[in-house]
Protein backbone atom coordinates (compact mmCIF):
# COMPACT_ATOMS: atom_id res chain seq x y z
CA UNK A 1 0.00 0.00 0.00
CA UNK A 2 2.65 2.49 1.03
CA UNK A 3 4.85 1.66 -1.94
CA UNK A 4 1.84 2.26 -4.18
CA UNK A 5 1.37 5.64 -2.54
CA UNK A 6 5.02 6.46 -3.05
CA UNK A 7 4.79 5.49 -6.69
CA UNK A 8 1.73 7.60 -7.31
CA UNK A 9 2.64 10.72 -5.31
CA UNK A 10 6.39 10.35 -4.81
CA UNK A 11 7.46 11.98 -8.02
CA UNK A 12 5.04 14.95 -8.03
CA UNK A 13 5.87 15.58 -4.38
CA UNK A 14 9.56 15.40 -5.14
CA UNK A 15 9.07 17.76 -8.05
CA UNK A 16 7.21 20.19 -5.80
CA UNK A 17 10.16 20.18 -3.38
CA UNK A 18 12.54 20.94 -6.23
CA UNK A 19 10.32 23.79 -7.41
CA UNK A 20 10.28 25.27 -3.91
CA UNK A 21 14.08 24.99 -3.76
CA UNK A 22 14.40 26.71 -7.14
CA UNK A 23 12.05 29.50 -6.08
CA UNK A 24 14.05 30.08 -2.90
CA UNK A 25 17.23 30.21 -4.98
CA UNK A 26 15.58 32.77 -7.22
CA UNK A 27 14.43 35.09 -4.39
CA UNK A 28 17.57 37.30 -4.34
CA UNK A 29 17.24 37.99 -8.06
CA UNK A 30 13.49 38.54 -7.79
CA UNK A 31 14.16 40.92 -4.91
CA UNK A 32 16.72 42.80 -7.00
CA UNK A 33 14.22 43.19 -9.83
CA UNK A 34 11.16 44.29 -7.82
CA UNK A 35 13.11 46.69 -5.62
CA UNK A 36 14.20 48.73 -8.63
CA UNK A 37 10.59 49.91 -9.08
CA UNK A 38 9.95 50.87 -5.46
CA UNK A 39 10.35 53.86 -3.23
CA UNK A 40 12.59 53.33 -0.16
CA UNK A 41 9.49 53.16 2.11
CA UNK A 42 7.77 50.55 -0.02
CA UNK A 43 10.92 48.52 -0.29
CA UNK A 44 11.44 48.48 3.48
CA UNK A 45 7.82 47.76 4.41
CA UNK A 46 6.97 45.17 1.76
CA UNK A 47 10.31 43.93 0.45
CA UNK A 48 8.98 40.93 -1.46
CA UNK A 49 5.67 42.35 -2.68
CA UNK A 50 5.24 43.17 -6.33
CA UNK A 51 5.73 46.90 -6.96
CA UNK A 52 2.50 48.87 -6.74
CA UNK A 53 3.32 50.67 -9.96
CA UNK A 54 5.97 50.36 -12.61
CA UNK A 55 8.03 53.36 -11.69
CA UNK A 56 10.79 53.81 -14.24
CA UNK A 57 12.10 57.03 -12.71
CA UNK A 58 14.79 55.08 -10.84
CA UNK A 59 15.95 53.63 -14.13
CA UNK A 60 16.06 56.94 -15.95
CA UNK A 61 18.20 58.32 -13.17
CA UNK A 62 20.52 55.33 -13.12
CA UNK A 63 20.81 55.46 -16.91
CA UNK A 64 22.18 59.02 -16.83
CA UNK A 65 24.22 58.68 -13.62
CA UNK A 66 26.01 55.63 -14.98
CA UNK A 67 26.35 57.18 -18.45
CA UNK A 68 25.05 53.80 -19.44
CA UNK A 69 25.36 53.95 -23.25
CA UNK A 70 29.05 54.76 -22.98
CA UNK A 71 29.97 52.13 -20.40
CA UNK A 72 27.86 49.57 -22.21
CA UNK A 73 29.66 50.32 -25.46
CA UNK A 74 33.07 50.13 -23.74
CA UNK A 75 32.23 46.77 -22.18
CA UNK A 76 30.97 45.55 -25.53
CA UNK A 77 34.14 46.67 -27.32
CA UNK A 78 36.37 44.95 -24.77
CA UNK A 79 34.29 41.76 -24.90
CA UNK A 80 34.02 41.55 -28.68
CA UNK A 81 37.68 42.26 -29.35
CA UNK A 82 38.84 39.87 -26.62
CA UNK A 83 36.57 37.06 -27.74
CA UNK A 84 37.47 37.54 -31.41
CA UNK A 85 41.15 37.48 -30.54
CA UNK A 86 40.81 34.40 -28.37
CA UNK A 87 38.82 32.47 -30.97
CA UNK A 88 41.00 33.38 -33.94
CA UNK A 89 44.49 33.13 -32.41
CA UNK A 90 43.75 30.03 -30.32
CA UNK A 91 42.17 28.09 -33.15
CA UNK A 92 45.12 28.95 -35.42
CA UNK A 93 47.62 27.76 -32.86
CA UNK A 94 45.60 24.67 -31.96
CA UNK A 95 45.38 23.76 -35.65
CA UNK A 96 49.11 23.80 -36.01
CA UNK A 97 49.68 22.00 -32.70
CA UNK A 98 47.21 19.28 -33.66
CA UNK A 99 48.48 18.78 -37.22
CA UNK A 100 52.20 19.07 -36.59
CA UNK A 101 52.89 16.76 -33.70
CA UNK A 102 56.69 17.12 -33.51
CA UNK A 103 58.64 17.44 -30.30
CA UNK A 104 58.75 21.24 -30.33
CA UNK A 105 55.00 21.54 -30.76
CA UNK A 106 54.39 18.94 -28.07
CA UNK A 107 56.50 21.08 -25.78
CA UNK A 108 54.58 24.21 -26.75
CA UNK A 109 51.28 22.49 -26.07
CA UNK A 110 52.41 21.46 -22.59
CA UNK A 111 53.73 24.98 -22.08
CA UNK A 112 50.26 26.40 -22.78
CA UNK A 113 48.52 23.73 -20.70
CA UNK A 114 50.73 24.41 -17.68
CA UNK A 115 49.18 27.88 -17.64
CA UNK A 116 45.90 26.41 -16.45
CA UNK A 117 47.40 25.73 -13.03
CA UNK A 118 49.38 28.95 -12.63
CA UNK A 119 47.69 31.80 -10.73
CA UNK A 120 48.85 34.52 -13.12
CA UNK A 121 47.44 37.20 -10.82
CA UNK A 122 50.62 36.85 -8.77
CA UNK A 123 52.41 38.81 -11.50
CA UNK A 124 50.04 41.76 -11.47
CA UNK A 125 52.68 44.34 -10.55
CA UNK A 126 54.86 43.37 -13.48
CA UNK A 127 51.86 43.21 -15.75
CA UNK A 128 50.91 46.69 -14.61
CA UNK A 129 54.38 47.99 -15.41
CA UNK A 130 54.35 46.26 -18.77
CA UNK A 131 51.00 47.76 -19.74
CA UNK A 132 52.40 51.13 -18.73
CA UNK A 133 55.56 50.63 -20.77
CA UNK A 134 53.56 49.60 -23.81
CA UNK A 135 51.60 52.83 -23.52
CA UNK A 136 48.34 50.95 -23.10
CA UNK A 137 47.44 52.28 -19.66
CA UNK A 138 43.87 53.62 -19.58
CA UNK A 139 43.11 52.19 -23.02
CA UNK A 140 40.45 49.55 -23.55
CA UNK A 141 43.09 47.65 -25.51
CA UNK A 142 44.98 46.97 -22.27
CA UNK A 143 42.13 44.85 -20.96
CA UNK A 144 41.71 43.17 -24.34
CA UNK A 145 45.33 42.07 -24.71
CA UNK A 146 45.47 40.69 -21.17
CA UNK A 147 42.21 38.83 -21.75
CA UNK A 148 43.57 37.30 -24.94
CA UNK A 149 46.68 36.15 -23.10
CA UNK A 150 44.89 34.51 -20.18
CA UNK A 151 41.74 33.42 -22.03
CA UNK A 152 43.55 31.57 -24.79
CA UNK A 153 44.90 28.81 -22.58
CA UNK A 154 41.65 26.91 -22.14
CA UNK A 155 40.61 27.79 -25.71
CA UNK A 156 43.74 26.23 -27.22
CA UNK A 157 43.03 23.11 -25.22
CA UNK A 158 39.40 22.90 -26.40
CA UNK A 159 40.26 23.58 -30.05
CA UNK A 160 43.13 21.11 -29.96
CA UNK A 161 41.04 18.22 -28.70
CA UNK A 162 38.32 19.08 -31.20
CA UNK A 163 40.79 18.99 -34.10
CA UNK A 164 42.03 15.58 -33.04
CA UNK A 165 38.60 14.08 -32.42
CA UNK A 166 36.27 15.68 -34.95
CA UNK A 167 38.02 17.40 -37.87
CA UNK A 168 38.98 14.93 -40.64
CA UNK A 169 42.46 15.49 -41.98
CA UNK A 170 41.72 14.07 -45.47
CA UNK A 171 40.12 17.26 -46.75
CA UNK A 172 43.15 19.25 -45.74
CA UNK A 173 45.50 16.81 -47.47
CA UNK A 174 43.46 17.04 -50.65
CA UNK A 175 43.56 20.83 -50.44
CA UNK A 176 47.31 20.77 -50.01
CA UNK A 177 47.76 18.55 -53.07
CA UNK A 178 45.69 21.09 -54.99
CA UNK A 179 48.23 23.71 -54.00
CA UNK A 180 46.36 25.37 -51.14
CA UNK A 181 48.59 27.18 -48.65
CA UNK A 182 48.51 26.38 -44.93
CA UNK A 183 46.72 29.63 -44.15
CA UNK A 184 44.10 29.10 -46.82
CA UNK A 185 43.55 25.49 -45.77
CA UNK A 186 43.06 26.54 -42.18
CA UNK A 187 40.76 29.42 -42.97
CA UNK A 188 38.65 27.89 -45.74
CA UNK A 189 38.56 24.23 -44.78
CA UNK A 190 39.36 23.64 -41.11
CA UNK A 191 37.98 26.78 -39.45
CA UNK A 192 34.38 26.42 -40.74
CA UNK A 193 34.25 22.90 -39.27
CA UNK A 194 34.93 24.27 -35.79
CA UNK A 195 31.47 25.77 -35.24
CA UNK A 196 30.44 23.68 -32.20
CA UNK A 197 33.65 24.32 -30.31
CA UNK A 198 33.71 27.98 -31.36
CA UNK A 199 30.27 28.30 -29.73
CA UNK A 200 31.68 26.82 -26.53
CA UNK A 201 34.73 29.08 -26.52
CA UNK A 202 32.68 32.19 -27.34
CA UNK A 203 30.23 31.49 -24.51
CA UNK A 204 32.86 30.75 -21.89
CA UNK A 205 35.05 33.70 -22.84
CA UNK A 206 32.12 36.10 -23.07
CA UNK A 207 31.06 35.26 -19.51
CA UNK A 208 34.64 35.58 -18.27
CA UNK A 209 35.49 38.81 -20.05
CA UNK A 210 32.19 40.58 -19.43
CA UNK A 211 32.31 39.77 -15.72
CA UNK A 212 36.02 40.48 -15.32
CA UNK A 213 36.52 43.20 -12.76
CA UNK A 214 40.17 43.10 -11.75
CA UNK A 215 41.74 43.98 -15.11
CA UNK A 216 39.50 47.02 -15.74
CA UNK A 217 40.05 48.09 -12.13
CA UNK A 218 43.81 48.08 -12.64
CA UNK A 219 44.14 49.25 -16.22
CA UNK A 220 41.28 51.67 -16.86
CA UNK A 221 41.43 54.82 -14.76
CA UNK A 222 39.58 57.60 -16.50
CA UNK A 223 35.82 57.68 -16.44
CA UNK A 224 35.62 57.89 -20.22
CA UNK A 225 37.21 54.50 -20.53
CA UNK A 226 35.49 52.57 -17.80
CA UNK A 227 33.28 49.55 -18.17
CA UNK A 228 29.91 48.69 -16.59
CA UNK A 229 31.33 47.02 -13.49
CA UNK A 230 33.70 49.92 -12.78
CA UNK A 231 30.80 52.35 -13.01
CA UNK A 232 28.76 50.23 -10.60
CA UNK A 233 31.73 50.13 -8.24
CA UNK A 234 32.16 53.92 -8.51
CA UNK A 235 28.52 54.57 -7.70
CA UNK A 236 28.23 52.09 -4.84
CA UNK A 237 30.53 54.31 -2.84
CA UNK A 238 28.31 57.32 -3.42
CA UNK A 239 24.87 55.78 -3.24
CA UNK A 240 25.23 53.16 -0.54
CA UNK A 241 22.69 55.01 1.63
CA UNK A 242 20.32 55.76 -1.20
CA UNK A 243 19.82 52.12 -1.99
CA UNK A 244 16.74 52.36 -4.21
CA UNK A 245 18.85 54.44 -6.58
CA UNK A 246 21.55 51.83 -6.45
CA UNK A 247 19.43 48.79 -7.22
CA UNK A 248 18.60 49.82 -10.80
CA UNK A 249 22.32 50.26 -11.34
CA UNK A 250 22.99 46.76 -10.06
CA UNK A 251 20.28 45.38 -12.30
CA UNK A 252 21.52 47.32 -15.29
CA UNK A 253 24.95 45.93 -14.48
CA UNK A 254 23.75 42.35 -14.88
CA UNK A 255 20.98 42.98 -17.43
CA UNK A 256 23.01 42.47 -20.62
CA UNK A 257 24.21 39.04 -19.52
CA UNK A 258 20.76 38.18 -18.16
CA UNK A 259 19.28 38.88 -21.60
CA UNK A 260 22.13 36.96 -23.25
CA UNK A 261 21.34 34.05 -20.94
CA UNK A 262 17.58 34.13 -21.49
CA UNK A 263 18.08 34.15 -25.24
CA UNK A 264 20.79 31.51 -25.38
CA UNK A 265 20.38 29.43 -22.23
CA UNK A 266 20.36 26.13 -24.07
CA UNK A 267 23.68 26.89 -25.73
CA UNK A 268 25.19 28.44 -22.63
CA UNK A 269 24.38 25.42 -20.45
CA UNK A 270 25.67 23.12 -23.18
CA UNK A 271 28.78 25.24 -23.66
CA UNK A 272 29.64 25.26 -19.97
CA UNK A 273 29.30 21.49 -19.77
CA UNK A 274 31.26 20.92 -22.97
CA UNK A 275 34.02 23.29 -21.91
CA UNK A 276 34.47 21.40 -18.66
CA UNK A 277 34.22 17.84 -19.89
CA UNK A 278 36.01 17.89 -23.25
CA UNK A 279 39.27 17.44 -21.33
Amino acid at each position, binding site marked *: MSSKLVRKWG*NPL*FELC*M*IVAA*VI*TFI*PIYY*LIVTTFKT*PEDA*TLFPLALPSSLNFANYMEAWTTMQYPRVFLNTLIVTVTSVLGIVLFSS*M*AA*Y*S*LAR*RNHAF*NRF*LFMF*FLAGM*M*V*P*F*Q*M*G*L*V*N*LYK*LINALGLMDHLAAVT*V*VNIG*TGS*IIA*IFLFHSFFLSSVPIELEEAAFIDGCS*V*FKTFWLIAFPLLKPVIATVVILST*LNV*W*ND*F*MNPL*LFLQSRDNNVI*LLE*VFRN*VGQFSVD*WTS*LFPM*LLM*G*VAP*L*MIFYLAMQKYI*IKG*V*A*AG*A*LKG
Partner: protein
Amino acid sequence: MNTKMRLLKREFDYQILILPVLIFYLLFCVYPFLSTFYYSFTDYSNMKLTNLKFVGLENFRSIFDSDLLMISIKNSLIYALLMTVFQTTFGLILAVFLDRKLKTKNILRSMFFLPAVFSPLIIGYLWSYLMSTSDFGLINSAITALGFEKINFLGNPDLALYSVVFTQLWQWTGWAMVIFLANLQSIPKDLYEAAEIDGANSWRKFWKVTLPLMQPSVNVVAVTAMIGGLKVFDIIFALTEGGPGNSTETIMTAYIKTVFNEGFYAKGAAFGVVFFIAVMMITMVMMSFLRKWGENTR
Protein backbone atom coordinates in the same frame (compact mmCIF):
# COMPACT_ATOMS: atom_id res chain seq x y z
CA MET B 1 64.25 21.00 -55.04
CA ASN B 2 61.15 23.00 -55.68
CA THR B 3 58.91 20.58 -53.82
CA LYS B 4 61.40 20.44 -50.98
CA MET B 5 61.27 24.21 -50.67
CA ARG B 6 57.52 24.06 -50.79
CA LEU B 7 57.37 21.51 -48.00
CA LEU B 8 59.77 23.53 -45.92
CA LYS B 9 57.67 26.65 -46.42
CA ARG B 10 54.64 24.65 -45.38
CA GLU B 11 56.25 23.62 -42.09
CA PHE B 12 57.26 27.23 -41.57
CA ASP B 13 53.70 28.42 -42.19
CA TYR B 14 52.39 25.97 -39.64
CA GLN B 15 54.68 27.43 -36.98
CA ILE B 16 53.65 30.97 -37.96
CA LEU B 17 50.08 30.09 -36.99
CA ILE B 18 51.17 29.56 -33.39
CA LEU B 19 53.02 32.85 -33.17
CA PRO B 20 50.25 35.40 -32.39
CA VAL B 21 48.83 33.56 -29.39
CA LEU B 22 52.32 32.69 -28.20
CA ILE B 23 53.25 36.37 -28.16
CA PHE B 24 50.16 37.28 -26.11
CA TYR B 25 50.78 34.39 -23.75
CA LEU B 26 54.47 35.15 -23.28
CA LEU B 27 53.96 38.87 -22.81
CA PHE B 28 50.91 39.02 -20.58
CA CYS B 29 51.13 35.74 -18.64
CA VAL B 30 54.57 34.19 -18.68
CA TYR B 31 56.73 37.31 -18.44
CA PRO B 32 54.86 38.85 -15.45
CA PHE B 33 54.87 35.44 -13.80
CA LEU B 34 58.59 34.75 -14.24
CA SER B 35 59.76 38.24 -13.33
CA THR B 36 57.86 37.87 -10.05
CA PHE B 37 60.46 35.28 -9.03
CA TYR B 38 63.25 37.75 -9.75
CA TYR B 39 61.65 40.64 -7.85
CA SER B 40 60.86 38.45 -4.86
CA PHE B 41 64.59 38.46 -4.01
CA THR B 42 65.06 42.24 -4.34
CA ASP B 43 64.14 45.33 -2.34
CA TYR B 44 61.78 46.62 -5.03
CA SER B 45 59.08 49.00 -3.73
CA ASN B 46 57.31 52.20 -4.76
CA MET B 47 60.06 54.07 -2.88
CA LYS B 48 62.83 52.19 -4.67
CA LEU B 49 62.15 51.61 -8.32
CA THR B 50 65.74 51.45 -9.61
CA ASN B 51 69.13 50.26 -8.38
CA LEU B 52 67.52 47.18 -6.92
CA LYS B 53 69.51 45.30 -4.33
CA PHE B 54 69.51 41.56 -3.84
CA VAL B 55 68.13 40.83 -0.37
CA GLY B 56 68.00 37.05 -0.35
CA LEU B 57 65.04 35.55 1.46
CA GLU B 58 64.23 38.70 3.44
CA ASN B 59 60.88 39.20 1.65
CA PHE B 60 59.83 35.63 2.32
CA ARG B 61 60.69 36.04 6.00
CA SER B 62 58.64 39.23 6.19
CA ILE B 63 55.57 37.30 5.08
CA PHE B 64 55.62 35.44 8.37
CA ASP B 65 55.78 38.73 10.29
CA SER B 66 52.70 40.07 8.56
CA ASP B 67 49.37 39.31 10.21
CA LEU B 68 47.54 40.38 7.09
CA LEU B 69 49.37 37.93 4.83
CA MET B 70 49.31 34.99 7.24
CA ILE B 71 45.60 35.38 7.99
CA SER B 72 44.87 35.77 4.29
CA ILE B 73 46.51 32.42 3.54
CA LYS B 74 44.49 30.74 6.27
CA ASN B 75 41.24 32.34 5.08
CA SER B 76 41.86 31.43 1.46
CA LEU B 77 42.52 27.82 2.41
CA ILE B 78 39.32 27.62 4.47
CA TYR B 79 37.36 29.35 1.74
CA ALA B 80 38.71 27.16 -1.07
CA LEU B 81 38.24 23.96 0.90
CA LEU B 82 34.64 24.77 1.83
CA MET B 83 33.85 25.81 -1.74
CA THR B 84 35.36 22.62 -3.13
CA VAL B 85 33.59 20.26 -0.75
CA PHE B 86 30.17 21.89 -0.81
CA GLN B 87 30.06 22.94 -4.43
CA THR B 88 30.88 19.38 -5.43
CA THR B 89 28.45 17.79 -2.97
CA PHE B 90 25.51 20.11 -3.54
CA GLY B 91 26.09 20.22 -7.27
CA LEU B 92 26.12 16.44 -7.41
CA ILE B 93 22.94 16.09 -5.33
CA LEU B 94 21.17 18.68 -7.43
CA ALA B 95 22.27 17.01 -10.66
CA VAL B 96 21.11 13.56 -9.55
CA PHE B 97 17.76 15.04 -8.50
CA LEU B 98 17.27 16.90 -11.76
CA ASP B 99 18.29 13.91 -13.81
CA ARG B 100 14.98 12.24 -12.85
CA LYS B 101 11.98 12.50 -15.10
CA LEU B 102 10.42 15.80 -14.07
CA LYS B 103 8.04 17.94 -16.09
CA THR B 104 9.71 21.18 -15.08
CA LYS B 105 13.24 19.81 -15.46
CA ASN B 106 14.45 22.38 -17.97
CA ILE B 107 13.05 25.41 -16.17
CA LEU B 108 14.46 24.20 -12.84
CA ARG B 109 17.85 23.70 -14.43
CA SER B 110 17.85 27.21 -15.88
CA MET B 111 16.80 28.71 -12.56
CA PHE B 112 19.53 26.99 -10.58
CA PHE B 113 22.13 27.98 -13.16
CA LEU B 114 21.07 31.62 -13.50
CA PRO B 115 23.20 33.13 -10.66
CA ALA B 116 26.37 31.78 -12.31
CA VAL B 117 25.88 34.14 -15.23
CA PHE B 118 26.24 37.27 -13.09
CA SER B 119 29.36 39.08 -12.07
CA PRO B 120 30.45 38.16 -8.52
CA LEU B 121 30.98 41.86 -7.88
CA ILE B 122 27.31 42.72 -8.38
CA ILE B 123 26.19 39.55 -6.64
CA GLY B 124 28.34 40.73 -3.74
CA TYR B 125 26.66 44.14 -3.58
CA LEU B 126 23.24 42.50 -3.76
CA TRP B 127 24.02 40.13 -0.90
CA SER B 128 25.50 42.90 1.22
CA TYR B 129 21.99 44.38 1.19
CA LEU B 130 20.28 41.04 1.73
CA MET B 131 22.51 40.25 4.72
CA SER B 132 22.54 43.75 6.17
CA THR B 133 21.48 44.34 9.77
CA SER B 134 19.66 47.58 8.92
CA ASP B 135 15.91 47.81 8.38
CA PHE B 136 16.09 46.86 4.73
CA GLY B 137 18.14 43.68 5.31
CA LEU B 138 15.80 41.05 3.91
CA ILE B 139 17.21 38.03 5.73
CA ASN B 140 17.34 39.76 9.09
CA SER B 141 13.79 41.08 8.64
CA ALA B 142 12.69 37.48 8.19
CA ILE B 143 14.69 36.38 11.23
CA THR B 144 13.24 39.07 13.48
CA ALA B 145 9.75 38.41 12.15
CA LEU B 146 10.17 34.83 13.36
CA GLY B 147 11.10 36.18 16.78
CA PHE B 148 14.85 35.60 16.76
CA GLU B 149 17.77 37.98 17.27
CA LYS B 150 19.32 39.64 14.25
CA ILE B 151 22.43 37.96 12.92
CA ASN B 152 25.33 40.17 11.86
CA PHE B 153 26.35 38.02 8.91
CA LEU B 154 29.06 40.28 7.54
CA GLY B 155 29.98 42.29 10.63
CA ASN B 156 30.79 39.39 12.91
CA PRO B 157 34.42 38.34 12.39
CA ASP B 158 33.62 34.73 13.28
CA LEU B 159 30.84 34.57 10.75
CA ALA B 160 31.81 36.82 7.85
CA LEU B 161 33.93 34.35 5.90
CA TYR B 162 31.19 31.71 6.06
CA SER B 163 28.62 34.24 4.90
CA VAL B 164 30.80 34.91 1.87
CA VAL B 165 31.08 31.18 1.20
CA PHE B 166 27.31 30.92 1.42
CA THR B 167 26.75 33.56 -1.27
CA GLN B 168 29.25 31.88 -3.54
CA LEU B 169 27.67 28.47 -3.08
CA TRP B 170 24.38 30.09 -4.00
CA GLN B 171 26.03 31.47 -7.10
CA TRP B 172 28.13 28.51 -8.31
CA THR B 173 26.30 25.32 -7.31
CA GLY B 174 24.21 25.56 -10.48
CA TRP B 175 27.38 25.75 -12.55
CA ALA B 176 28.66 22.53 -10.98
CA MET B 177 25.23 20.96 -11.46
CA VAL B 178 25.30 21.61 -15.21
CA ILE B 179 28.67 19.88 -15.56
CA PHE B 180 27.53 16.92 -13.45
CA LEU B 181 24.30 16.62 -15.44
CA ALA B 182 26.20 16.38 -18.72
CA ASN B 183 28.33 13.63 -17.22
CA LEU B 184 25.28 11.81 -15.82
CA GLN B 185 23.63 11.78 -19.20
CA SER B 186 26.65 10.11 -20.74
CA ILE B 187 26.32 7.06 -18.44
CA PRO B 188 24.82 4.18 -20.46
CA LYS B 189 21.36 3.26 -19.17
CA ASP B 190 21.95 -0.50 -19.48
CA LEU B 191 24.44 -0.30 -16.61
CA TYR B 192 21.54 0.63 -14.34
CA GLU B 193 19.38 -2.13 -15.76
CA ALA B 194 22.14 -4.64 -15.09
CA ALA B 195 22.47 -3.36 -11.52
CA GLU B 196 18.70 -3.66 -11.06
CA ILE B 197 18.76 -7.27 -12.19
CA ASP B 198 21.45 -7.87 -9.56
CA GLY B 199 18.97 -6.49 -7.04
CA ALA B 200 20.64 -3.15 -6.30
CA ASN B 201 18.46 -0.44 -4.74
CA SER B 202 18.76 3.18 -5.87
CA TRP B 203 21.22 4.05 -3.11
CA ARG B 204 23.54 1.19 -4.11
CA LYS B 205 23.13 2.11 -7.76
CA PHE B 206 24.32 5.61 -6.97
CA TRP B 207 27.40 4.44 -5.06
CA LYS B 208 28.38 1.55 -7.29
CA VAL B 209 27.38 2.74 -10.77
CA THR B 210 26.89 6.50 -10.86
CA LEU B 211 29.64 7.86 -8.64
CA PRO B 212 32.57 5.90 -10.12
CA LEU B 213 31.55 7.01 -13.62
CA MET B 214 31.26 10.61 -12.48
CA GLN B 215 34.99 10.84 -11.91
CA PRO B 216 35.73 13.09 -14.92
CA SER B 217 33.25 15.77 -13.86
CA VAL B 218 34.09 15.52 -10.16
CA ASN B 219 37.73 16.07 -11.08
CA VAL B 220 36.97 19.17 -13.11
CA VAL B 221 34.54 20.71 -10.63
CA ALA B 222 36.69 20.00 -7.58
CA VAL B 223 39.94 21.22 -9.09
CA THR B 224 38.46 24.40 -10.60
CA ALA B 225 36.59 25.15 -7.36
CA MET B 226 39.85 24.78 -5.45
CA ILE B 227 41.97 26.94 -7.78
CA GLY B 228 39.15 29.48 -8.20
CA GLY B 229 38.65 29.51 -4.43
CA LEU B 230 42.30 30.25 -3.75
CA LYS B 231 42.16 33.12 -6.27
CA VAL B 232 38.91 34.65 -4.96
CA PHE B 233 38.78 38.44 -5.17
CA ASP B 234 35.67 40.14 -6.61
CA ILE B 235 33.16 38.83 -4.09
CA ILE B 236 35.33 39.76 -1.11
CA PHE B 237 35.96 43.19 -2.59
CA ALA B 238 32.23 43.80 -2.89
CA LEU B 239 30.99 42.16 0.31
CA THR B 240 33.50 42.86 3.05
CA GLU B 241 36.70 44.40 1.63
CA GLY B 242 38.55 41.94 3.82
CA GLY B 243 36.93 43.05 7.07
CA PRO B 244 35.84 43.12 9.77
CA GLY B 245 39.43 43.26 10.99
CA ASN B 246 41.27 40.89 8.70
CA SER B 247 38.66 38.18 9.07
CA THR B 248 37.85 37.84 5.35
CA GLU B 249 41.17 38.86 3.80
CA THR B 250 42.14 36.38 1.13
CA ILE B 251 45.39 35.89 -0.74
CA MET B 252 44.31 38.12 -3.61
CA THR B 253 42.87 40.95 -1.51
CA ALA B 254 45.97 40.93 0.71
CA TYR B 255 48.22 40.86 -2.36
CA ILE B 256 46.43 43.82 -3.92
CA LYS B 257 46.66 45.74 -0.64
CA THR B 258 50.34 44.98 -0.15
CA VAL B 259 51.25 45.89 -3.69
CA PHE B 260 48.92 48.64 -4.87
CA ASN B 261 47.99 50.33 -1.59
CA GLU B 262 51.22 49.96 0.39
CA GLY B 263 53.67 49.78 -2.52
CA PHE B 264 55.68 46.83 -1.17
CA TYR B 265 56.28 45.32 -4.59
CA ALA B 266 58.99 42.86 -3.60
CA LYS B 267 57.09 41.61 -0.57
CA GLY B 268 54.05 41.17 -2.81
CA ALA B 269 56.19 39.29 -5.30
CA ALA B 270 57.46 36.92 -2.61
CA PHE B 271 53.90 36.42 -1.48
CA GLY B 272 52.95 35.66 -5.08
CA VAL B 273 55.68 33.02 -5.29
CA VAL B 274 54.40 31.40 -2.09
CA PHE B 275 50.90 31.53 -3.55
CA PHE B 276 52.07 29.84 -6.74
CA ILE B 277 53.86 27.06 -4.85
CA ALA B 278 50.80 26.54 -2.63
CA VAL B 279 48.47 26.29 -5.63
CA MET B 280 50.78 23.82 -7.38
CA MET B 281 51.11 21.63 -4.31
CA ILE B 282 47.41 21.63 -3.49
CA THR B 283 46.48 20.87 -7.09
CA MET B 284 48.97 17.99 -7.28
CA VAL B 285 47.79 16.50 -4.00
CA MET B 286 44.17 16.82 -5.07
CA MET B 287 44.75 15.27 -8.46
CA SER B 288 46.59 12.27 -7.06
CA PHE B 289 43.91 11.89 -4.40
CA LEU B 290 41.17 11.99 -7.05
CA ARG B 291 43.09 9.55 -9.25
CA LYS B 292 43.43 7.10 -6.35
CA TRP B 293 39.71 7.42 -5.65
CA GLY B 294 39.02 6.70 -9.31
CA GLU B 295 41.18 3.57 -9.21
CA ASN B 296 39.67 2.29 -5.98
CA THR B 297 36.08 2.55 -7.07
CA ARG B 298 36.69 0.81 -10.33
